[in-house]
């Protein structure tokens, strides 16, 4: 039993079981919808968490990749007559290529300079998506054709819940493997001290670029899922506020924690739904919650709480 609990995949298995059982408590389709959104954003946050939590690099423009993935799923079937699933892959590939090309110069920057450069990258993508109305429908956005897999038209919040759950668990499993790999160790060394890592022979530029590309692909796939699930997309998906939201999910849940990405996404997706009852006071409460969590649980929710339970301290 002890060996089972301390296995490196134990945490992931617990998450998978929870996701499997959770729908039993859903009284209506609305709950499936919210849960699917949580899982899709958790996948995006997971990608950003690899960059921020593992490698210690900030991105204030990650929603750009959400936008690339989302608009790929919209434009591919609409304008290029490509099947949706292929568009998702092409979008992910495009995100990876963009990350690869801009990553090398951008990742040379440090701290707040990196933050402003990624912010600029995010704005550029959002501006292009807003202004190239011939392809993207402009500020009003465009309709996203439903996902069709082998003649099967994917629809309904419950179906999307399962797709998103599988995607998240698969993504988390890949992330765990990446963390344990030599690349993961190198990235942790870079997080602690870039100079020390490079003295020890870590190719800092290459490793940072690698995790930036991986993180862009995660976020792109999440963006595609979001677009296909909603059936509609607007340039807001790539906006500055979305980027901030992704960072907030990672930091709130806990940097470097996979469960943290899920918890952070859950809070930032569910909280606004609950707060709509407060009407005008919605934003005040959201701001207060954000501030309080960061003041009192400054490591993020999952790491701060698990530090209270000695048995899980290692995980």
């Amino acid at each position, binding site marked *: 039993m002890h060996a089972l609990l301390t296995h490196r995949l134990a945490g992931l298995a617990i998450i998978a079981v929870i996701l499997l059982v959770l729908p039993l408590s859903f009284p209506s389709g609305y709950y499936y919808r919210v849960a699917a959104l949580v899982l899709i954003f958790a996948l995006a946050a997971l990608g950003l968490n690899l960059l*921020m939590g593992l490698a210690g690099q*900030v991105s204030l423009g990650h929603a750009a990749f959400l936008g690339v993935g989302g608009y790929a799923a919209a434009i591919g079937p609409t304008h290029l007559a490509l099947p949706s699933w292929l568009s998702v892959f092409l979008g992910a590939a495009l995100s990876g290529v963009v990350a690869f090309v801009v990553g090398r*110069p*951008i990742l*040379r*920057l*440090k*701290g*707040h*300079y990196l*933050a*402003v*450069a990624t*912010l*600029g*990258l995010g*704005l*550029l993508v959002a*501006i*292009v998506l*807003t*202004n190239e109305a011939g392809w993207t429908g402009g500020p009003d956005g465009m309709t996203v054709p439903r996902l069709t897999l082998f003649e099967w038209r994917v629809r309904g919040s419950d179906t999307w819940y399962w797709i998103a759950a599988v995607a998240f668990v698969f993504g988390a499993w890949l992330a765990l493997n990446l963390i344990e790999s030599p690349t993961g160790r190198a990235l942790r060394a870079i997080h602690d*001290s*870039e*100079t*020390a890592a490079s*003295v020890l022979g870590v190719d800092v530029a290459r490793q940072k670029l690698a995790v930036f590309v991986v993180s862009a692909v995660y976020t792109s796939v999440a963006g595609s899922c979001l677009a296909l699930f909603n059936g509609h997309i607007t340039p807001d998906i790539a906006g*500055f*506020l979305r980027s*901030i939201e992704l*960072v*907030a999910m990672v*930091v*709130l849940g806990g*940097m470097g924690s996979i469960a943290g990405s899920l918890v952070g996404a859950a809070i930032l997706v569910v909280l606004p739904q609950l707060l709509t009852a407060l009407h*005008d*006071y*919605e*934003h*005040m*409460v*959201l*701001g*207060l*919650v*954000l*501030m309080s969590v*960061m*003041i009192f649980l*400054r490591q993020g929710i999952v790491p701060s709480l698990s530090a209270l339970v000695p048995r899980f301290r290692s995980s």
Partner: protein
Amino acid sequence: MAEFLQFFFSGLTVGAVYALVALGFTLIYNASDIINFAQGEFVMLGGMTTVFLAATGMPVPLAALVAVIATIAVGLALHRFAIEPARGASAVALIMITIGASIFLRGAAQVVFDKRFHSLPPLLGAEPIRVAGAAILPQSLVVLAGAAVIVVLLWWLLDRTLLGKAVIATSANRLAARLVGINTRSIVGFSFAVSAAIGAVAGILVTPITLTSYDVGTLLALKGFAAAMLGGIGSAVGAVAGGLILGMLEAFSAGYVSSKYKDAVAFLVILAVLFAMPNGLFGRGHIERV
């Protein structure tokens, strides 16, 4: 030529506002290493408070004074209740706190004030001044003069007073500053107050030109941050230069390239500058201790 002058003056006006916001970022960053994303909210509070006090019949100059004092109070409260309790938190956590504060202040403004756009009467009338074919709003000159006065006052404060020397000592080395008897906590609080005041004045001066509403802060914070980074964070000269350059870039690319892509051009230039000079135009190099 007339066209060029026109773009030049509009760039200078917008740039002056960016420069003031960037100065606010710089002051707080120097005293505490915190990037305060609620900086744009100070600008919004200055403008909105003045508008609503003036609407109650209060004379505009008095309303402006009260608005600046109120914004300073908000800045001090932000420091006391959000930044102080989080002392020692990571840089990202502190950024999230200031973003939380900016969401909170925006939400509060939406409740206390409203969601509409508002304006103030210009100080020197609305009749444009003709200069070599270009039309300049008198209020633009007010903004520029105001920004210049603030920069000079700030220079005087930091360079010529004991308090300013304490601020500079704190930004150079916090531990050493404490050792010579400087209360670094009050210095950080003081920098929040001054930043809030600068933001509020900028907001009041620019409202007759650009209008104000509860949500103008986000974009201003973003532009001010970009300007501060372009100049090199921590450098006051860099903040002013970065702000003016950003304003010019926007105005000229809106005029000569495309108004839709003005922000894109501005950020492309910022990216290009950072690739060539990773510490901004006036920033110092960074040495990492292992």
